[in-house]
């Protein structure tokens, strides 16, 4: 149906059109870099970035916990139990997943994402209360988590359960999106899915009235681990 003919005729029509002067790509990138070079948080310390991150995420109804590496598992375990979470999707093979699993009380069951989505879609959609993810990094200026889903923590962990719990290290917080993209070399190797999360799911589609929990998680809890403070201590 999509014949080579269509492809050739579209490209042919575009090529036949009078050529516009082609601006230099390098010059364009220099301008993009320059615009971001003086971003407000470019010279901020990790804890300053964590502060901004906390403020902005809180403003879009995200619950932010700032703790150190030793205390967060117990705090989060308590919080999950109090919220009545019974089944938590979690990757035990990561240090963070294991630490949280150990801290959880008996009545909070953890389950790994151990089989392909299509094999247990029904359970995932109706029988899981929360999903735990470890963010690759964060973006302070917009209060954003950078998630790079993988085999242990696939995309749906942060998407299908009604509560998403994410952990991000303060030392991984970038000033802005441009800084994150450059520092992590996104162009050199994009994962299948890279998702930037800036709050719980929401919509204003009914008479411009903001409502949370449209299709993704209605609640987002973020643990910012202040690892930079530890390093200084």
């Amino acid at each position, binding site marked *: 149906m999509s014949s080579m003919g*269509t492809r050739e005729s579209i490209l042919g029509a575009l090529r036949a059109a009078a050529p516009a002067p082609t601006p230099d790509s390098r010059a364009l990138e220099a301008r993009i870099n320059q615009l971001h070079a003086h971003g407000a948080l470019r010279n901020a310390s990790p804890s300053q970035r964590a502060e901004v991150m906390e403020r902005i995420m809180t403003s879009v109804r995200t619950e932010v916990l700032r703790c150190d590496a030793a205390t967060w598992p117990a705090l989060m375990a308590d919080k999950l139990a109090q919220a009545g979470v019974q089944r938590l999707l979690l990757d035990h093979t990561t240090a963070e997943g294991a630490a949280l699993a150990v801290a959880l009380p008996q009545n909070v069951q953890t389950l790994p994402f151990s089989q392909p989505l299509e094999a247990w879609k029904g359970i995932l959609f109706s029988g899981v209360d929360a999903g735990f993810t470890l963010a690759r990094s964060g973006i302070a200026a917009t209060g954003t988590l950078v998630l790079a889903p993988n085999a242990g923590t696939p995309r749906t962990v942060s998407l299908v359960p009604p509560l998403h719990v994410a952990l991000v290290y303060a030392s991984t917080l970038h000033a802005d999106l441009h800084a994150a993209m450059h520092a992590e070399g996104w162009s050199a190797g994009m994962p299948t899915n890279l998702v930037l999360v800036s709050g719980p799911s929401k919509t204003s589609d*009914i008479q411009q009235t903001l409502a949370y929990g449209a299709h993704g998680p209605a609640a987002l809890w973020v643990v910012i681990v202040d690892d930079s403070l530890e390093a200084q201590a």
Partner: protein
Amino acid sequence: MNARPMHFVSPADFRERVNEALQDQGLRASMRGAMDFLQAKRSSQFPDADELERLRDLGEAVRQHALANLPDLLVQFEANLQALGVQVHWAANADEANAIIHGIAQRRGARSIVKGKSMASEEVELNHYMAERGISCIESDMGEYIVQLAEEKPSHIVMPALHKTRAEIGALFERHLPGTPYTEDVDTLILAGRRALRRKFADADIGLSGVNFAAADTGTLWLVENEGNGRLSTTVPDVHIALMGIEKVVARLEHIVPLASLLTRSATGQAITTYFNLITGPRRVGELDGPREMHVVLLDNGRSQAFADQQLRATLQCIRCGACMNHCPVYERVGGHAYGTTYPGPIGKIISPHLLGLEETADLVTASSLCGACGEVCPVRIPIPELLVRLRTEANRDPAQQVDSPLRGQGANFSRGEQLVWRFWSGAFARPTVYRWFRWAATRLRAFAPSSQLGWTRHRAPLVPAKRSLADLMRERGQAE
């Protein structure tokens, strides 16, 4: 669910629908409220006027760079997608796009498609095409879902159900969603919509989405949303089809950074939306979710006509933020449906003639006071007022006249009589003797001015020459003509 065809209207009946819309007090009130809200949200995101202008310069430069290299970028994008295992299709028009998507559905034995928001799919009337062939398309963006239940079309490209009140939506949900009592509480309504659509994501054979930006260098699709329905549609079903206009591709992933910022700030007044969903190919070996089969459909549908003309090419810079319609005095008064086109408002007026031809859309380009608000807020500096004037010129051009890149429907508003009047006028104006004679005759014969003067007298009093010309009056005061 929605096997009946959508309600089709012809853009050519624009004038009648405008009159109806102007009488609709409810619509006028909700439009006014929505426009005030969206304008305030946008301006709160741009407190620093200098930063805004620098960012607009950059946005324009990125889009112009992409368009200047478009054929090469499309080829590069295609090669990178194919290397990732994505099947790439090219569609010259709506029928081809629909046939490609239907072909994929048939091969997979699919009965249902769950859709993330896609204006391109509205443009090709995909839902209607598939429904006629026994495949149901379910819109999952809350606004799109609402207009689909109401058997309407979106009235705004970012906020599809902008024209509807919560009372209307409450009644709609009560009627269509079993076990949903009438309510005007928005949280309750959204929860009802969430429940109704949840199973659809899990059960759908195919997920279809639009694309906000595409990067040629990495083969990445960049999707922008708040609800999570776009993520669900592109992650849960085993097949993902992305439908995108050929103009969406840019050279490099990092070029999208300023565009994404301009888009969310201009559209909904957000520094960033809840989700930026960057998709680079189908599920890879060892991964446990995401579609195992992925298709990208590249849609022309008249875009190459706009591309062919140096001036009109700027139309394709658009990033579909909707700021032009949010600031348009015409859109605010008539609403999105009056236009009868997929894309309403100022951007609709300049893109629709390429998609549908000037025969259908010649009246749309005249529905502007050329106040310039659209051009002033456009994040990528599309000179919309200039393009409107240009399209008016093309609509009034003699159909027989040969031009370099003729537009479909050239001369749709052409009238021999009007051409003669203008010829006479320009001739008279260029010759002082003739002009003086004309002036003398017009002031003396003013009683014979016709009371009906075509379009002019439809809404205004007839034009009657003054008793004395300005030149006469000046001469009486002792000043030279």
